[in-house]
């Protein structure tokens, strides 16, 4: 098989589709799976930057945050129709990515990490100060989005398959991008910027476009996350969350969107499992993550390739 990454992704999608029917159909499991899939989308979008472009962003949670707060703002204005809210959430995050990316992408390496972190913190403190939307305490949504006036998303199983459908779409999109002309330039500039310039490509516009696309997908994840939890708080934008996302990407391996997908699922599920095992789960989780970074070069995707 020439495309093992596709097989892996399809196997994961099949498992996620079957999950509700093989014992994971209760509300609790569905919520957990939805959360895992949503972080899957966010991690895939971040992997476009980190893996595809070599752009290590430590501010990606802000993209989710902008999407989530778009839901809040519209909810407060009594707009809860998905066909309105989703495009606004995506658009707002894309715009935020465009404005911050236009500046951040002028830098590279450690400076890029720091400036994305700074923009993320800016967004974090901004949401904390939004008294109208609950400030630090956050904002509770009493209902999920409506789709053409229907409240079908309230049903866990419908929400599950909505997230799965979007996850597949996001995976396919990012995979296509990486194999396109655009992706080729992006990766060339990641590997050898001077070479990219020497054949005629100025990396900046390609990187900025990737940043905006990743931001847009992050915004979509944020909209979904708000609806999964029916609650939004500034904690969504905390830099720790950006770190988690970065971790998922690295844990999965930088070889493509299927890696980020595996990283996100593993991260969310292991975190949940450990939390149930012991209340000191963080003491185990931290070292576990460090272990993975040290001993699993190429991440989970790398393990599968060798195994």
């Amino acid at each position, binding site marked *: 098989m020439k495309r093992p990454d596709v097989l892996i992704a399809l196997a994961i999608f099949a498992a996620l589709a079957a999950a509700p029917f093989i014992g994971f159909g209760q509300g609790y499991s569905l919520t957990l799976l939805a959360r895992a899939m949503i972080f899957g989308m966010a991690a895939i979008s971040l992997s476009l930057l980190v893996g595809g472009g070599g752009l290590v962003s430590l501010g990606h949670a802000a993209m989710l945050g902008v999407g989530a707060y778009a839901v809040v703002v519209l909810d407060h204005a009594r707009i809860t129709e998905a066909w309105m809210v989703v495009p606004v959430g995506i658009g707002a995050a894309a715009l935020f990515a465009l404005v911050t990316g236009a500046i951040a992408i002028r830098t590279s390496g450690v400076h890029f990490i720091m400036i994305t972190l700074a923009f993320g913190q800016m967004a974090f403190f901004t949401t904390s100060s939004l008294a109208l939307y609950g400030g630090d305490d956050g904002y509770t949504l009493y209902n999920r989005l409506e789709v053409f006036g229907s409240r079908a998303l309230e049903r866990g199983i419908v929400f599950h398959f909505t997230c799965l459908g979007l996850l597949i779409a996001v995976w396919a999109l990012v995979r296509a*991008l990486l194999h*396109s*002309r655009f992706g080729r330039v992006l990766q060339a500039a990641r590997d050898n910027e001077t070479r990219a310039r*020497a054949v005629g490509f100025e990396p900046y516009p390609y990187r900025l476009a990737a940043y905006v696309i990743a931001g847009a997908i992050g915004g979509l994840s944020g909209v979904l996350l708000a609806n999964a939890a029916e609650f939004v708080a500034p904690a969504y934008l905390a830099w720790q969350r950006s770190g988690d996302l970065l971790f998922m990407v690295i844990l999965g391996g930088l070889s493509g969107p299927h890696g980020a997908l595996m990283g996100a699922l593993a991260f969310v599920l292991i975190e949940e499992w450990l939390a149930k095992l012991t209340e000191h789960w963080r003491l185990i989780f931290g070292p576990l993550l460090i272990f993975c970074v040290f001993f699993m070069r190429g991440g989970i995707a790398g393990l599968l390739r060798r195994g």
Partner: protein
Amino acid sequence: MADLLLELRNLRKRFGGLTVTDDVSLDLKRGEIHALIGPNGAGKTTLIHQISGTLAPDSGQILFAGTDVTHLRMAKRARMGLARSFQITSIIPSFTARENAALAVQARHGSSFRFFRPANSEAALNEEAMAALTEVGLERRAETPAAALSHGEKRQLELAIALAMQPRVLLLDEPLAGTGAEEAERLMRILGGLRARYAILLIEHDMPAVFALADRISVLAQGRVIAHGTPEVIRADPAVRDAYLGEDEVA
């Protein structure tokens, strides 16, 4: 003059107290190989950096086909038809040899803001990439990741990438460096064959190759052009002997 493709006018560049380009003026015509020789540290690579746009000169002018490109960015100059190879091989290690060449083809083949179609399935890109690889004799290694190529093959790829740009001017920085005798001979044959289509500025330490290939030679020492002329003139120039050529090479 339509045949004058590249013209340097009074180029100067200093690195702190060190003058690396000292009032250099030279030109390059269509259909010629103009060799630039000089001892290590003479400023040859620095000059190529300024022509290609990696470095900005402190003063002076660079004209490409009559257009002042002194202040244009490297990518822009490349798209205009000014291609360079690097003394230290500069390729995309994670791409195959073909993908490396196809990247260069892609740069002059419509927009690269295309997001969905797999680039690897674009026949037009692949054909031209393969043509460039074939020209340097690398076609059998087309699907090998560039990182896995031998040193000599990487030098061939470096040249193939420049050819895939279909430039008007080729700036070649020691294309033979580090290649075996057989590879060097092959590359020399290729360079000789390219003369008709491109104007080539060739930096090379391999003196037999330079004297065999070059139509004109400029000698650089400590940033200055100390001699200029046909291979015969250069061979006979006493200043050149002193500054650069070993006796055995001149003999």
